[in-house]
């Protein structure tokens, strides 16, 4: 026990912390080093803390893995929210986006942070031309931006539209989601980051 590194002692009711000789009840993890095995305090909070799960994007928001992984990002800018992803590194971090506001005079955008990165995946889009109609759009090999313009490329419903992005490898994100379009629907994917 002497010179041991940062043990935590759980004492029974009435137990003297100074004179307790038996090592039973010690927690060998550290608060700052991962009390629950390998997960860090920040990782547990990001996944579990309901009070901070919903994050407003506002007009613009730049994400970091440390602050936004496992969070739900609300696309709520009145004229659109421009959200920039953190650099992709294969971290496995997941970012969930919910459209809260149908953008007026602008678009919601989810974009990578550099021209070397891409968004790869598919988005399903409900259509307004007949009940039950839908379409699907797959990203091109160089696409790096998702644009929801509030009509043809999605973002036309508001709450109910969602996109999930996973940092799957260096320079590449995985994308899946469901959005709502109107008019002559068009792909939300584009290559726009240089």
């Amino acid at each position, binding site marked *: 026990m002497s010179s041991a590194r940062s043990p935590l002692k759980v004492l029974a009711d009435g137990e003297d912390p100074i004179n307790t000789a038996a090592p039973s009840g010690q927690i060998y993890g550290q608060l700052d080093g991962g009390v629950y095995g390998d997960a860090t305090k920040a990782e547990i909070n990001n996944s579990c803390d309901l009070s901070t799960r*919903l994050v407003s994007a506002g007009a613009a928001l730049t994400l970091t893995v440390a602050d936004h992984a496992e969070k739900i990002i609300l696309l709520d800018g009145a004229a659109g929210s421009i959200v920039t992803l953190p650099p992709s590194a294969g971290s496995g971090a997941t970012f969930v986006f919910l459209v809260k506001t149908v953008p007026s005079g602008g678009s919601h955008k989810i974009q990578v942070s550099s021209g070397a990165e891409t968004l790869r995946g598919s988005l399903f889009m409900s259509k307004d031309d007949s009940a039950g109609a*839908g379409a699907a759009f797959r990203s091109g090999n160089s696409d790096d931006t998702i644009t929801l313009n509030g009509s043809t490329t999605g973002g036309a419903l508001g709450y109910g539209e969602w996109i999930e992005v996973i940092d799957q490898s260096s320079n590449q994100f995985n994308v899946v989601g469901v959005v709502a379009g109107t008019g002559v629907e068009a792909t939300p994917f584009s290559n726009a980051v240089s």
Partner: protein
Amino acid sequence: MSNIRGPLYVLTAEQYPSQEADPHGIIQGGLTGGILNGATTEEIDYVANLSRKPLQIISSNPDRVLTSSDFGKTVGINAGSTSSSATLPAATGSGGYFDVIVRNSITGGATFTLKVANSSDTIKGISLGRNNSDNTIWMFNSASGTDAFRMNGTTTGGANRGLRVRIIDVAANVWVAIVFGNDHSTTPATPWAELV
């Protein structure tokens, strides 16, 4: 300092606990008080405790009233030919969620209904599914007054196992439902309804 109840010591490396007289570094909260500066032990339980995940809707419990204490649980629909339902807690914007899965196809004219707790609450979502006769994709948007998601085992879905719904309490009076893999038969129709 002696004989007090259950304090937790945080000691720096090489610090010997029995010789540490200065009480600095004591964590005032306990393990149950939110040591993670955010997530409570209950919230960690919502996400990580597999033993509390299943929450089946069965014929002997035709209407299951969910509470915030059930956040993170999975509602497994075992309805078969018996109608059943689940009632959500009031939406407050807590960020809490439930998962709903079809474990057993809905048959014989039965329905399963996921509905809000009061007439002020709504459900927003897009149901993504297929027609099981030709594998075409069918998508249905909720309407402004939608407050329920109902499957009848045929046209409105639930015809086969595999449906997944994650429903999230995103704001006061608003639930958002992510619906993936709804299985329709005959002529697909919207599962969204205004019932409450």
